[in-house]
């Protein structure tokens, strides 16, 4: 059973299921949470603080999320493409729009290795 992620401050509260999160992008001292429906909600927490909330609230579901560099947390289940050439990663949920994010080539290289590795592990099983 999934547990929702709750991001709450003195004036606002966001409650979202992990599977509904496409990614979270840093916006200076704020973060923007993108849902798979294409909605985006700005929350008044830095990306590291959002990462902390994910790690503490989501239990085993937290490992679905990968922090890529300083700027973004992605839901690995929605990785659509990784382009080292363009230094871009595209995320896409079923029936959702493609969402493209720029990241460093080095971090994408490592991310690609991680995804390739999970493919190998799946093949071995």
């Amino acid at each position, binding site marked *: 059973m999934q547990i929702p992620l709750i991001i709450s401050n003195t*004036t*606002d509260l966001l409650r979202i299921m992990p599977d509904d999160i496409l990614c979270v992008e840093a*916006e*200076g*001292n*704020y973060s923007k949470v993108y849902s798979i429906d294409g909605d985006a909600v*700005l929350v*008044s927490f*830095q990306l*590291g*603080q959002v*990462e*902390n909330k*994910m*790690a503490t609230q*989501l*239990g*085993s*579901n*937290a*490992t679905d*999320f*990968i*922090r*890529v*560099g*300083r*700027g973004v*947390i992605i839901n690995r289940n929605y990785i659509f493409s990784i382009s080292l050439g363009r230094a871009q990663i595209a995320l896409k949920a079923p029936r959702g729009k493609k969402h493209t994010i720029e*990241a*460093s080539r*080095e*971090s994408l*290289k*490592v*991310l690609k*290795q*991680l995804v390739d*590795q999970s493919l190998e592990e799946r093949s071995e099983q």
Partner: protein
Amino acid sequence: MNEHKDFYDNISDNEIRVIGSHLSQSPDGAKPSEKNAPSGKQRQWWWWAILAAIVVATACTVLCMLLMGKDAPDEEPAADVSQSYETVAIDSLVMTHEDAPAYCEERNDTVNDIILHIVTPLGCAPKLHLGRLPENDTTMIMAVQAADVRGDNGEIAGAYIYEGELKSKGKSKLGFCAIVGNEITLGRQAETPLFERAIEENGYFFRQYSLVNEGKMIDIKPKGKSLRRALCCYEGRIVIIETAERESYHDFSQALADLGVEEALSLVGGEAQFHYTTADGTNHRIGTDVSDRYENVNYIVWR
């Protein structure tokens, strides 16, 4: 808690980290390696190193400024940075739409030998405007340049929200103006919920130097003299106050505070554009149009 905070902030642009597993991987490692939060000794070493670097950098900066007599950089005034953790109350003001025809009232006042030109828009409401001002727009009662545009890249300096869309980020300047719904708010705060409200409610937001906050002058670092202009909350209204002569920020801030201004936000001064229409229908046109050079030139426009 701080230990966690340190860990979650501790990632470079070239690394990735699987959340919840404390697995980090950098490009030099072929396999994901266990990268738990740094040990106490490691963290202590890093803190000492960072502290030493800050002390050395500060000492060098102070020394350079003393020796060379240079001004502090305009973009990040040291005074503002040092006060960024203070909690400051925000004044909210509602602009009322009056039935009478809109116009601007102007008068002069002298404080500390500084002549202040005070222009009060009446019966009209402010919005931000991005790009060149429309010509022959008779509904425009007042227009004044708002946020600074950076000379190096042409981007707007500091956070800027236009009709709910975030056009620029940053908060090196703590002062802000938010126009959300029927309220215009001037204040001085590093983080304000009005930022989010401006996005959610298709509002407007920009940052500038705060010159007066809660009736007290803010002594910002940039020196030098110029024609100064400010967006102010004064006697329960939003007004524009400008100097007739070239003045320093310090003297202008002090004059505004002594005048009794509750909140004041610096606007682009010097040759920046300032248009307003008085009751007799005269269109006053001050300043130079620079929209050809800077596409992000922006204004507050009252209609």
